[in-house]
């Protein structure tokens, strides 16, 4: 029995092989990633969990190419990130990656529609069309009446929804979230994840969420646990909970 390899359900979206990343720190470098191997599947929400300082953010950074590795190989949707030039990685990111940050990073002087339209504008869309599309996504996320508001007029949960809209507006195939609930209270965080799961998870898309908030583990399809620069456990979420 053989399946044609497509970007359909459960194909490998992100493959990290034997990646080492150190930071210079006097004579003995800090090992942020020690020989990490890890895969994330399309169609799933993968969570990277672990104690503070274990290298979660570093792993995200090397996956999206904002940070270079010392050695090892990283493939995102079959493309070798390490083999690309700086400009190529940046262009790749603008087309294929959506970001959700812990601090939201919405530009305070731009309206919600303008904020959410930035990934499209970066791809060369005219601003009118980009804002229309952004407004449509914001409306889907329940912010239809606020598209001309500014971020400071919104609650934290609403701001995180704008950030989700911004991450989704250009239909990226990889969504990366670093501690998306850390600036939110438990209930709002729960809602944000619910919304993310509903709107972002699609068969051809891979969502990676870094967190140490165990209350949202239930939203994961797959969980990878890190410790001191290594992935020590990687399994379906159901198994993780039972372990």
């Amino acid at each position, binding site marked *: 029995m053989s399946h044609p390899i497509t970007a359909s359900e459960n194909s490998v979206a992100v493959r990290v092989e034997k990646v080492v990343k150190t930071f210079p720190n006097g004579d003995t470098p800090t090992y942020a990633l020690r020989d990490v191997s890890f895969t994330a599947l399309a169609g799933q929400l993968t969570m990277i969990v672990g104690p503070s300082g274990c290298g979660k*953010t*570093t792993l*995200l*950074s090397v996956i*999206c190419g*904002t*940070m270079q590795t010392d050695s090892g190989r990283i493939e995102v949707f079959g493309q070798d990130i390490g083999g690309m030039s700086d*400009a190529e990685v*940046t*262009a*790749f*990111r*603008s*087309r294929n*990656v959506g*970001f959700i*940050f*812990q*601090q939201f*990073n919405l*530009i305070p*002087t*731009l309206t919600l529609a*303008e904020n959410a339209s*930035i*990934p499209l*504008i*970066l*791809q060369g869309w005219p*601003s009118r069309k980009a804002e229309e599309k952004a407004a449509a996504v914001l409306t889907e996320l329940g912010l239809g009446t606020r598209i001309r508001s500014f971020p400071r007029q919104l609650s934290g949960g609403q701001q995180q929804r704008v950030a989700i809209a911004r991450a989704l507006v250009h239909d990226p195939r990889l969504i990366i979230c*670093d501690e998306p609930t850390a600036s939110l209270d438990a209930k709002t965080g729960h809602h944000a994840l619910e919304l993310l799961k509903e709107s972002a998870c699609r068969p051809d898309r891979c969502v990676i969420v870094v967190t140490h908030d165990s209350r949202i583990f239930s939203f994961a399809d797959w969980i990878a646990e890190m410790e001191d620069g290594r992935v020590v456990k990687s399994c379906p979420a159901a198994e993780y909970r039972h372990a």
Partner: protein
Amino acid sequence: MLRIALLMLFRDRAKYVMLVGGLTFCSLLMTQQTSVFCGIMLWTTATVRNIDAKVWVFDAKVEQVNEVIPLREIEVTRVRSVPGVEWAVPLYLGIEQARLGDGSFQNVQLTGLDTATFVGRPMEILKGRVEDLRLPDAVIIDQVGVEKYRKKGIKIDIGTSFEINDKRAEVVAICHENRSFLAQPYVFTTYDRALQFAKPQRKMLSCVLVEPKPGVSPQELAARISRVPGLRAFARDDLFWTTVRWYIKNTGIPISFGTVVIMGMIVGIAIAGQTFYLFILDNLRYLAALKAMGARMPILTAMVFLQSFSVGFVGFGIGVGLTTLFGLKVLKLETPPFFMPWQVPVAVAVIIMLICSFSALVGLRQIAKLEPAVVFK
């Protein structure tokens, strides 16, 4: 993204106003002070600009047009004998005392024109005729003088008489002249009569005005005449610039104006540079987010330059606009002097652009140093 850059700038009201204000102040100070300086330089060269002659001959020790070292009358003949001279005529320049109807004294710039030809005659006659200088006691007085007397309640018109060094003078025409540094009224008369008005001295000739033969350039002729011992000749343009240079070198005027201009620059750099730097620092984490989301450095560079140049442009526009308004206002009053040659706004624009580029580069350095990974922090 450029639109986004402008929105980020304009909507940050406080910093935008501060930036534009700083650059407005800076360009206003620089253009206004430089224009007043240029105006003063025009005042100091009023005589050169008022008297239309291609070559001017003075005593060899004269360094600028407002300095008079008298020559002997015979020098006119010596100048005429220099090859390339079409004609040469005498000119008398001197500060004399005029006594008004009410008995008060006023210094005037007395100009004696060659009696036969009136070479150096006023260029703009408002009333009367130059030819009437042939009448007895006749003089022409300029508008500055008429105004000065009018302020004292004395009306001067054709037919009015007054005294110069106790000798009777009668106004036959009124002219318009460029005003001089001390704003003394210009009084024109014939050379011969000027000598009668003036206090007698051994040498009375101030200067010889020369027309070169066709095909001989004024510079070339001036060089030839300067070779005659005891004489120094200038082409009109050279006399203008020599005089300006003399004032720049020998007076404190450029230093005081230069200080203000440099202060303006420093204030501009300090306010605009600082504020822009703060603006970039405030936005640094968003710029980092943009970098992570796929904005390449050339795009960010364009954004930052657009931001800094748009405040520069607006600040420059308002600053030069205000200077022009100031200029239009003071030109009517004639004090302080004001002259804005096109080089002044161009130079100020270049300086403002340099300030903006400098601020932008300082900001860009921060962005370039930025690891896109910091957005995850």
